[in-house]
């Protein structure tokens, strides 16, 4: 009749990601909260500096990527939190699916979430800080995706651990932020160059660092994840 068979890792990952995004879409509240946090943060940062002493164009990159790091952190809890509420995670663990597929699915849904927030935060920064952007904006978008991949890899891994602890909201930032440095620094430095009209070649070293980080940590997190959900 219906003999179960093992589905491929990628298709399971997509299945899980789609399910998470369907749930996110139904409630939407988390996404809007992250978005509002981002916009508020960007606004607050603008107002705490003296715009005559420091030019907005100098602050903008730092603000964008700092807010990105924290907004990203805030959004990471949902991924595993929703599985723990009703123990739905047990269903995932009892299925004939590779553990890595669970990680990839969660990371993918986190990635969509974070890049969506970024897709609105970047224009907001351009708006609030009165920035001029030419074709550099496209490259900035690319950098955003690379940065999001790095953030989400490490964040998904650590959130799968902290979700079991008592003070998860504090523990996750504490563990994850050091790992965001090699993501935020290249992103911010590259953005600063692009803002003053730098060519792609000037930001290439930073992009290469981001790519290296993404590959290294992407692979490491996938390999190490099964150890965090064993029991």
């Amino acid at each position, binding site marked *: 009749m219906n003999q179960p068979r093992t589905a491929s890792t990628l298709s399971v990952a997509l299945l899980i990601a789609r*399910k998470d995004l369907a749930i996110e879409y139904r409630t939407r509240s988390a996404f809007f909260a992250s978005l509002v946090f981002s916009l508020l943060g960007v606004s607050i940062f603008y107002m705490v500096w003296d715009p005559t002493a420091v030019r907005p164009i100098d602050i903008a990159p730092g603000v964008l990527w700092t807010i990105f790091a924290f907004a990203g952190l805030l959004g990471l809890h949902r991924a595993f939190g929703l599985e723990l509420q009703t123990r*739905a995670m047990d269903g995932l663990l*009892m299925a004939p699916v590779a553990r890595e597929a669970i990680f990839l699915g969660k990371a993918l849904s986190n990635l969509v979430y974070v890049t969506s927030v970024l897709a609105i935060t970047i224009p907001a920064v351009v708006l609030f800080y009165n920035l001029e952007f030419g074709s550099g904006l496209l490259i900035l978008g690319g950098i955003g995706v690379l940065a999001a991949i790095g953030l989400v890899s490490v964040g998904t891994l650590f959130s799968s651990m902290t979700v079991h602890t008592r003070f998860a909201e504090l523990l996750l930032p504490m563990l994850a932020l050091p790992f965001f440095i090699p993501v935020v620094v290249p992103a911010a430095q590259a953005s600063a160059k692009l803002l003053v009209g730098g060519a792609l070649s000037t930001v290439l070293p930073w992009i290469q660092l981001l790519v290296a980080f993404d590959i290294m940590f992407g692979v490491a997190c996938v390999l190490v994840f099964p150890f965090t959900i064993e029991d």
Partner: protein
Amino acid sequence: MTSPDPNRPPGATPVCETVDLVRRFGRRRAVNGVQLTIRAGECLALFGPNGAGKTTLLRLLAGLLRPTSGEVRLLGRPLRGGAVADRGRVGLISHQSMLYDVLTVRENIVFAARLHGLADVDGATDATLARLGLEGRALSPVRALSRGWQQRVSIARAIVHGPSLVLLDEPYTGLDVAGARALTALLLALREDGAALALVTHAVDEGLALATHAAVMLDGTIRRIAPTADVDAQLFAEEYRAMAMESVA
């Protein structure tokens, strides 16, 4: 719903077997040396006071917990540390619903079916929904259902993939008379299909009516296990109550 492997003669390899199973949590031994065998078509009713280790035992049988020592075998193969494909033959109904509240009944079942790689996802989903009387509620979000109906959805999710072993943790809690009757009928049907069942319950009458074997668990060990045919329901109920009182004292 369940189709036993046609290549295996019934009763040859036990569906579920434990060998000296121990599970420790820090300083506490929740399961302290359990030997169990459950064959296809059998149903083990597991009684015991709270804290006896019954839920831990079920989770070990489901493969969700790693034994501290000893082994759990499913269809002759070790449950932990085996191939990915060896998983997916167990269905668990626990205290928690294991459902996604925000999604509809149908979406939850379809997700479980897809996760288990079923070939005919829609067919299996429709059949399971029908079996549990959920067709009328298929498009409701799970959180809009009452506890009894959510229970049915949990059961549907647990059996859609035709598991060989079905584990139930106090499934009668919160069900009304009609719900309880429907559940008993379903479990008997699953038994007839060749699935092995393990049922943790405090409802002595329902448990004994349904089970082929009855066991009492206390402080992590199985104190008494017997085929229900040999068990006098009233006597058993009294003995069980006495044992439970003793363990509290």
